[in-house]
């Protein structure tokens, strides 16, 4: 954009402009600003995508070496409707390409979609909530163009994700063979395109919902609905046409490495274009700060949870608690429901049993529903650990916004404040764990699996010590490096999980594996509860939390 420094001739110039620095167009500046906010996440997720891809390829080669094993895999997974519903249709499972496509497509587009919608709602409605959008719009940049510049930055972030994923495909294809480069690119595109597809959804909900949280929840609901429609479409052959209704279905219909269908890209591109255009259209027309779904800003007072710092922490945590409990209950229900089907399949498929053995470091037999559920609960423990870490980031948020100054200006000690938050976090995590166990039991019962209520409650309690460990470490991170609370808390959980996963695949020795706390989890309900490991993790978590509280007590408050 050309800069205009000349006043119209008829108007007197107020003052001569001594020098003008060319800084690029405002749209480019806004885009770059947004890109800086998201590029770290894009790189982290890109690394996760790359590792998952490489792990799938190597796991296949090492596990299903013979043609007979591959044929069995094709027969077993391809014919199981429960697996197909959850993880998508399995095609050409007798090739490394087909297996890799199925394994990565079952999970990574979901991750990309959630990432996209969270980033979009944060950078659009979140910035508006914080008043920074107002500063941006004071520049010579319209509301619609500022929105599009931000979305373009998300597009560039997806580019980073895509580049790292592609890099992994090309490298593993070069090392292992079996994956054509063109097909690999198409796979990387299918894995990543959910990010812009659901960022576009987030862009729209950011225009119509009043807060970042509400916008993210609404976009999350759209995502959940799309996932359920996809599950229905894949679960029943008569409902297959439903696949053509949602972005997740279209991504599946891209069929990377298994007879690619370029036509499926068209609805995805149209979806993105229409939603982006609609967001820009609304952004241009609405008042700053306004929202079609705005709640009333006045209401009678609610008195609960205003008495003490700890009860206020609890009050503030309830929204997140309900959201996590619902999401985890749904997850537990689904995995519980399919547990019998998976176990039945494993009983007839030596290949699947071997596959599980090769991708987990634990000697587990998933030919029983209990064995399968024990594995599922490792995954649930990871999710619960992320939830625990989110409590530390919430504490940091309180400090960064200066609200902690307000609280500590009252007769509230730092020790009591942080200890209260840790207790609230521990309680919330325990509640969500129990809800998950209950839901998994209900699902297992509905699916006809032999797993009792006691089994699954034990499994959820078994997850708590490792979660407590990560809660303690996150609190310690908050105390030592407040500005990096999120990176430390979430980073440790992610690192430990990836360590356990990759370690198992490359058959690392026991002492290497045991670096990850998730490796210490007993496989309840398939195995008995490991008292000493649990006590050790609980003690370590409690120590970390106590040291964190003490260090926090001694450090300065640090603003954003």
């Amino acid at each position: 954009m050309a800069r205009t420094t000349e006043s119209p001739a008829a108007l007197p110039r107020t003052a001569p402009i001594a020098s003008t620095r060319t800084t690029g167009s405002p749209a480019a500046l806004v885009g770059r600003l947004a890109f800086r906010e998201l590029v770290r996440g894009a790189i982290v997720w890109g690394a996760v995508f790359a590792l998952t891809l490489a792990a799938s390829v190597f796991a296949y080669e090492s596990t299903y070496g013979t043609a007979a094993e591959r044929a069995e895999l094709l027969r077993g997974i391809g014919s199981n409707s429960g697996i197909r519903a959850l993880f998508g249709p399995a095609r050409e499972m007798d090739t490394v390409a087909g297996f890799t496509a199925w394994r990565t497509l079952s999970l990574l587009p979901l991750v990309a979609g959630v990432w996209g919608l969270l980033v979009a709602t944060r950078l659009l409605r979140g910035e508006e909530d914080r008043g920074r959008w107002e500063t941006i719009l004071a520049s010579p940049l319209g509301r619609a163009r500022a929105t599009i510049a931000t979305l373009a930055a998300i597009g560039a972030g997806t580019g980073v994700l895509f580049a790292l994923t592609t890099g992994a495909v090309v490298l593993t294809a070069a090392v292992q063979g079996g994956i054509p480069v063109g097909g690999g690119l198409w796979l990387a595109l299918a894995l990543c395109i959910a990010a812009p597809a659901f960022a576009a959804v987030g862009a729209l909900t950011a225009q119509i919902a009043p807060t970042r949280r509400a916008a993210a929840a609404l976009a999350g609901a759209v995502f959940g609905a799309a996932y359920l429609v996809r599950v229905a479409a894949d679960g029943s052959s008569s409902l297959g046409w439903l696949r053509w209704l949602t972005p997740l279905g279209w991504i599946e219909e891209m069929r990377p490495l298994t007879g690619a269908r370029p036509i499926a890209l068209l609805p995805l591109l149209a979806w993105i274009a229409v939603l982006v255009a609609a967001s820009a259209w609304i952004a241009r027309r609405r008042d700053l700060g306004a929202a079609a779904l705005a709640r009333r800003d006045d209401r009678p007072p609610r008195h609960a949870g205003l008495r003490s710092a700890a009860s206020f922490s609890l009050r503030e945590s309830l929204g997140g608690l309900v959201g996590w409990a619902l999401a985890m209950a749904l997850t537990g229900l689904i995995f519980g429901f399919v547990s019998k089907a998976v176990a039945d399949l494993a009983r007839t498929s030596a290949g699947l049993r071997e596959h599980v053995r090769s991708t987990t470091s634990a000697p587990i037999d998933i030919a029983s529903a209990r064995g399968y559920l024990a594995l599922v609960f490792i995954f649930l423990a990871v999710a619960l650990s992320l939830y625990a870490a989110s409590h530390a980031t919430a504490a940091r948020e309180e400090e960064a916004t200066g609200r902690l100054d307000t609280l500590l200006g009252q007769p509230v000690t730092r020790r009591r404040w942080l200890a209260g938050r840790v207790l609230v976090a521990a309680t919330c995590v325990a509640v969500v764990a129990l809800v998950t166990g209950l839901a998994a039991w209900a699902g297992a019962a509905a699916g006809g699996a032999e797993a009792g209520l006691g089994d699954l409650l034990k499994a959820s309690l078994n997850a708590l010590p490792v979660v407590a460990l990560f809660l303690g470490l996150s609190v310690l991170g908050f105390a030592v490096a407040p500005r990096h609370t999120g990176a430390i808390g979430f980073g440790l959980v992610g690192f430990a999980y990836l360590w356990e996963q990759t370690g198992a695949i490359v058959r690392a020795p026991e002492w290497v594996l045991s670096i990850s706390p998730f490796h210490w989890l007993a496989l309840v309900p398939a195995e008995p509860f490991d008292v000493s490991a649990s006590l050790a993790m609980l003690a370590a978590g409690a120590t970390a939390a106590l040291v964190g509280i003490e260090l926090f007590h001694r450090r300065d408050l640090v603003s954003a």
Partner: protein
Amino acid sequence: MPAVIEASGLTKRFGATTALEALDLEVRQGEVFGFLGPNGAGKTTTIRLLLGLIRPSAGSARVFGRDAWAQPEAIHRRLAVVTADPALWPQLTAHETLDLLGGLHGGYDAAYRQELIERFDLDPDKRLRAFSTGNRQKVALIAAFMTRAELLVFDEPTSGLDPLRKVVFRECLAEARERGQTVFLSSHLLVEVEASADRVGLLRRGHLVEVGTFDELRHLSAMRIEATFEGDPPDLDGIPGVEGVRVDGRRLSFHVHGSVAPALEALAAARPVRLTSREPSLEDLFLARYGADD
């Protein structure tokens, strides 16, 4: 009068930056102490040290005779604080915010709270997210005054308030002083402090450069004189006490330190048609002390 706030050698460094250097300060019980300085002088750092939110790099701050860093809880039971841009919870209503802050403080005067809500014209059932900075400041001010705490600490408390509410704030401040409450009022707005403070401290670049009553500090500053003449203004070179002479056509303006008699004689000889002089305001006080570089 016992000291409510005592700072001795109070120093705070952030890395290589020294935000506050060797501050010695005493605020006595029952007085309104004005704490003046331009933006970035270290006022907020001082207040955060007094509240025990950050730890002194050297020296100590004592409030009610207790160390601010070691015993903040006991101190905070007896004080209330308001900052320039109070950080509050956007999802709470004003009513809920007052409940929370009053509850954490350990009690408040409910009748006075109601009276303050009416005087500040606050809508208590509105969520904070719908409030402007000024309205959030009202909530924080009400929360502070309603506790009737022995010590009120204000950091730029009226920056967002409209003129009518500023009057209400000054009334409340006067009432607090009558009741015997001690007030620590930090500001870069001179009128705000001039109207209420018994004593002031001037802070500049982390150094406390002056403390005293207004009368004590006025001698440090210059009187400002402006004169207009029929013909050319006189030459004031060499006249004792005169500084900062500016000539603009037939108008002349300057500062005088000490006696104005020699300058007036020189002016009278040149037949002025118009003459104005101003008592030094705090603005001049700052200019005289700091020069124009801040």
